[in-house]
């Protein structure tokens, strides 16, 4: 019993239980709507794994939301709720598109410039929230929701500027190819490349049929880096101290206001990086008119939550989420069930993660119960 209780208290356990619950609830909903849940889940998984290009697309889809997940998780360690990841992502996408369209630079220059500019834009968007919080005590949720909408309409305004708008489309011109971060974009279309790839069919499929790019590598690298910063550096120590107990941190001489600002700057920069990866990494390499939020930032909230705030956990949660998002399209195509079923599943998973406190309480009960029996 004690062992059971111990296993139940591991964060990964609550994540797994939440995921199982997500499937159960989705199954009930599907069945109630007259679809066969097994068939739907089968379609979901085959949509994720059946072909090499699916897997590649899952990774492409996952990279930005791993990054926005990291953004939310980082802020959360300083006890800030960064619901503004969406806006930070959008402003970064705007800036990357503008510069990517206009700057005529070779790839070794353009790529770093765009990455830096996107992170800076996101960082400023997040930092603004931190500044308002530190200086005037305005709650970060309010300011970041407002900034989300400002970013949203700013984006639509920019898209429709004659200088950037691509005629007969809903978007801007794409950025220059020297700003792409796809894997060997020129080589794979060269005769040698084609020849080499034709010998390895799966690789050929991945390379030719998807925008396979460095995004996932950047996301994994950032997850490890964020983990290192939080747990192994003096700055991370400081930010976490502020997150756990602002009063004690202040008493110990930590500048709490500055910590809040820094935390939001970094968090915003991570969401900004997500925007970079999305624009530079995959077609259509531009921004287009938004009818509603694309949810790359809001999905980061769910990712961070499912990961229990752990940076490395964000990789797995992001992959799961990315997989569901991509595979969900197959559910709609093959089974006819609306892809919104994926949102129901994700919502359920997040809901049960929130209940994970309950699981650990139950585990305590269990341990206590067995202790009483042992007497």
């Amino acid at each position: 019993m004690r062992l059971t209780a111990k296993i139940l208290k591991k964060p990964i356990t609550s994540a797994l239980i939440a995921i199982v619950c997500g499937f159960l609830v989705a199954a009930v909903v599907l069945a109630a709507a007259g679809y066969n849940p097994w068939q739907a889940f089968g379609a979901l998984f085959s949509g994720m794994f059946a072909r090499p290009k699916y897997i590649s697309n899952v990774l492409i889809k996952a990279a930005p939301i791993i990054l926005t997940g990291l953004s939310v998780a980082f802020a959360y360690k300083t006890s800030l709720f960064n619901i503004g990841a969406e806006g930070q992502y959008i402003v970064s996408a705007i800036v990357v598109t503008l510069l990517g369209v206009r700057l005529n630079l070779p790839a070794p220059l353009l790529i770093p410039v765009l990455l830096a500019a996107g992170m800076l834009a996101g960082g400023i968007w997040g930092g603004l929230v931190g500044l308002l919080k530190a200086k005037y005590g305005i709650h970060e949720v309010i300011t970041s929701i407002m900034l989300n909408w400002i970013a949203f309409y700013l984006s639509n305004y920019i898209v429709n500027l004659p200088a950037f708008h691509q005629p007969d489309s809903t978007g801007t011109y794409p950025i220059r190819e020297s700003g792409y971060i796809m894997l060997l974009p020129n080589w794979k279309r060269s005769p040698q490349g084609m020849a080499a790839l034709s010998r390895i069919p799966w690789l050929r499929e991945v390379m030719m049929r998807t925008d396979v790019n460095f995004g996932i590598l950047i996301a994994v690298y950032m997850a490890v880096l964020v983990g290192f910063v939080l747990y192994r550096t003096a700055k991370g120590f400081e930010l976490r101290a502020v997150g756990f107990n602002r009063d004690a941190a202040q008493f110990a001489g930590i500048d709490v206001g500055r910590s809040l600002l820094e935390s939001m700057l970094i968090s915003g920069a991570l969401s900004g990086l997500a925007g970079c990866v999305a624009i530079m990494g995959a077609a259509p390499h531009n921004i287009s008119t938004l009818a509603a939020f694309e949810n790359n930032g809001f999905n980061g909230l769910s990712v961070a939550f499912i990961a229990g705030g752990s940076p490395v956990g964000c990789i797995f949660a992001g992959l799961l989420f990315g997989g569901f998002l991509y595979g969900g399209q197959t559910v709609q195509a093959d089974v006819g069930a609306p892809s919104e079923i994926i949102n129901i599943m994700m919502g359920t998973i997040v809901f049960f993660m929130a209940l994970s406190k309950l699981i650990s309480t139950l585990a305590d009960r269990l341990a206590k119960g067995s202790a009483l029996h042992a007497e």
Partner: protein
Amino acid sequence: MQISDKYAVQMRGIVKTFGSLRALDHVDLDVRKGTIHALLGENGAGKSTLMNILYGLYQADGGEIYRNGKRVRIKGPNDAIRLGIGMVHQHFMLVENFTVTENVILGREVTNSLGVLDMKRAREDVRRIVEKYGFQVDLDAKIEDISVGMQQRVEILKALYRGVDVLILDEPTAVLTPQETNDLIGIMRNLAAGGKTIILITHKLKEIKQSSDACTIIRRGKLIDTVNPQTVDEETLAAKMVGHPVRLVVEKTPAQPKDAVFEIDRLSVRDKRGLPAVKDLSLKIHRGEIFGIAGVDGNGQNELVEAITCLARAESGTIKINGEEIQNTTPQNVIRHKISTIPSDRQRHGLVLDFSCEQNTILEKYRSGPFSRRGVLQNGKIAAYAEKLIREYDVRPSTCALQPARSLSGGNQQKLIIAREISNEPDLLIAVQPTRGLDVGAIEYVHKMLVHERDAGKAVLLISLELDEVLSVSDTIAVLYGGSILGTFRQDQADEKTIGLLMAGGKRHAVNS
């Protein structure tokens, strides 16, 4: 002991478990009618838990309760009050802008046949009780205008008005001045003489000697003994309470103060509501001196400390350490100028409870070598340092380095803070209520450390609400009232009575020494 109607309350074999903690382990209690019965124990010994069970706030996991020899079941405070058992908690539950009478009758309003409040009759009823037991209370004063001691009497009145026979008082003197404490003991005696039974929860030995007819000692949830406090000395009571002999007197040699290292000149500070809290306060502390500030809570102690540590703005005046002004800078600057503070609220200001003990030891030092290099924490150095502090300051369990500070007992949390602050090698050590909520053993330890720092040539500022503590530990004693220092005394010239009067805002009887 037999179950008999000579006893107002008898409890048998009471068991209560919280999680994995056995808070009460088969505790018996026999309270004779018409007596004052003290319940003595350290913090967390289980005395409040036992009384909360009697008052119905908790349900026991096992055991029986008898009232006047009859078995009773108490499922909630309403059951308890119906059985004539009342309780006055440490934190009062009064309506601030109601009068004393209104508060007393609240929930038991007297109405005439039309259902209209009959204040005249109610006031008469309350007055009768007041006269019978010699309370000195203005029945028409509003709660917000009367002192804490008075408010406590209103709480007692409330219980009596509900026809309570057995009155439980939970640490009633924690908030009182010495004079108010004496008054309360007088009232308790009157009540007992009038046939009421009083159960007094306390950890203050002196009060028990002064007031009680019997004293039951509880240690770690177990019944240790019931003694007659009139025939047993304080050392014995203390030893029974903690389980080993304790020295109640602070041992120290006369102070040998050297040059003044810390100086406050005409400091004024406003509180969070913008009202003046510290007014024109000046003081000087020397190396090798413990400067104690006595005073009732809310007389500017918090604001004074916050101004020194730069958490609050000094409106005017200067604060100097080693000749350098530090007022209105940053907490970090204060620490850099060798001022270390043991805060009054150790869980809120002293520790990051979710950090490990190890991380808490470097809370003020993580920025620089040897604990971080080029911004990266040096885990080996940190672990070695924490290990050393935990060993030197005897923080228990000795294996706590990687456990969250939350898991430590209050006394050990305090030891961890003291270890951290003293190892800063400050020129001025500020200790605010350093023994609040600690048991006798831990208190002895804290006092020893303060004296040790003094003997090492540091200046020590002790701010405490416990007058006994200030009197026994400090070399110089100042009384803080209404944000000003009303008098300063050398330890050998300070007597409890004069200081008690000043704490209540009385006229200055002594001249600055």
